[in-house]
């Protein structure tokens, strides 16, 4: 059933996982370091953009390497990825609405 791996395949997949682990750890450490060192000095928008991009990078490594999606069929990846496009709309719509309430409730 599950494809039994050859020794070489096994070794290379183990290597790939430790590589992903190192990258995830480094990204997390960099995120926290940037938050503590640069956070107080840079505009909120710059910081938040950085955090979102770093988090998306981590998400790609977890889904691709740990959850093995990178090695599945393209059609399967799309069947999971395409529905998530709805979230882009949801984030924009709800963030806009929240900001609008802020302006309504707290006029300058």
């Amino acid at each position: 059933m599950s494809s039994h791996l050859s020794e070489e395949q096994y070794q290379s997949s183990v290597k790939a996982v430790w590589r992903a682990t190192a990258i995830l750890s480094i990204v997390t450490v960099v995120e926290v370091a940037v938050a503590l060192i640069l956070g107080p000095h840079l505009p909120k928008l710059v910081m938040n953009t950085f955090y979102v991009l770093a988090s998306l990078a981590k998400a790609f490594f977890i889904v691709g390497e740990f959850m093995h999606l990178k090695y599945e069929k393209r059609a399967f990846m799309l069947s999971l990825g395409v529905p998530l496009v709805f979230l882009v709309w949801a984030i924009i719509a709800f963030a806009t609405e929240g900001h609008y309430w802020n302006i309504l409730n707290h006029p300058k």
Partner: protein
Amino acid sequence: MAEILEIQEEHHTNLLPTPDNGEGGEKTAMNISYGKTMMWYFLLSDAFTFSAFLIAYASIRLAQAWWPNPNLVFKSFPGLGHTNAPLAFVSVMTFILILSSVAVVRAVQEGHRMNQKGVMLWMIGGIVGGAMFLGCQAWEWNHLIAEGLRPFYNPFGPDANGVTHLVEEHMAVSPGPIAFGALFFGITGFHGFHVFTGVCINIWAFFATANGTFQRRGHYEMIEKVGLYWHFVDLVWVFVFLAFYLM
């Protein structure tokens, strides 16, 4: 007939009736087993649930004139008393969860080699990591509750300059936005519940492995399915960490 045989060949499946092991071993058109496909689609639906929570958090937070500064709310570390260590403890929690996820990936890989002992060893790593994460979360919740945070009360308020302080220390002029507590306990609690169920499922998988269930079955696909759920818990934490602690 020849065509069917070719398809069989291509997908490494056996169209003859196979003993039913209860987890649907036959491959689908996308060359992934039925069981794994359904686990993925369950996780997709779970991702939408978490997204709905986090988007609600974002819209409520954006609607406030002021929000507690996470660096000043989450600054405690166990055993260090009234210390100022922003993000330190939550970074440790993140690291524990990543390592626990890695342990389960290693268990899946050992499963591909039919190495029963290896699967058991790495599953223990995954279980211990999950339990440690839950312990950390229990400590953090306990600490915040002791400071006065409740689902309907938020003691972290602004002083005259907008800096975050505890109301009880008479520095803040008013309590902070009420939704902070409900969102924090609600979302980290829902995530923590996933961690808890994940640990329970991992413990079950460990004992099933120890009993030789998967060895007799001839494959360790169940470990892969359990692993998918466990990595998803790690994935969600990335975004909880982003929303509550970094932004």
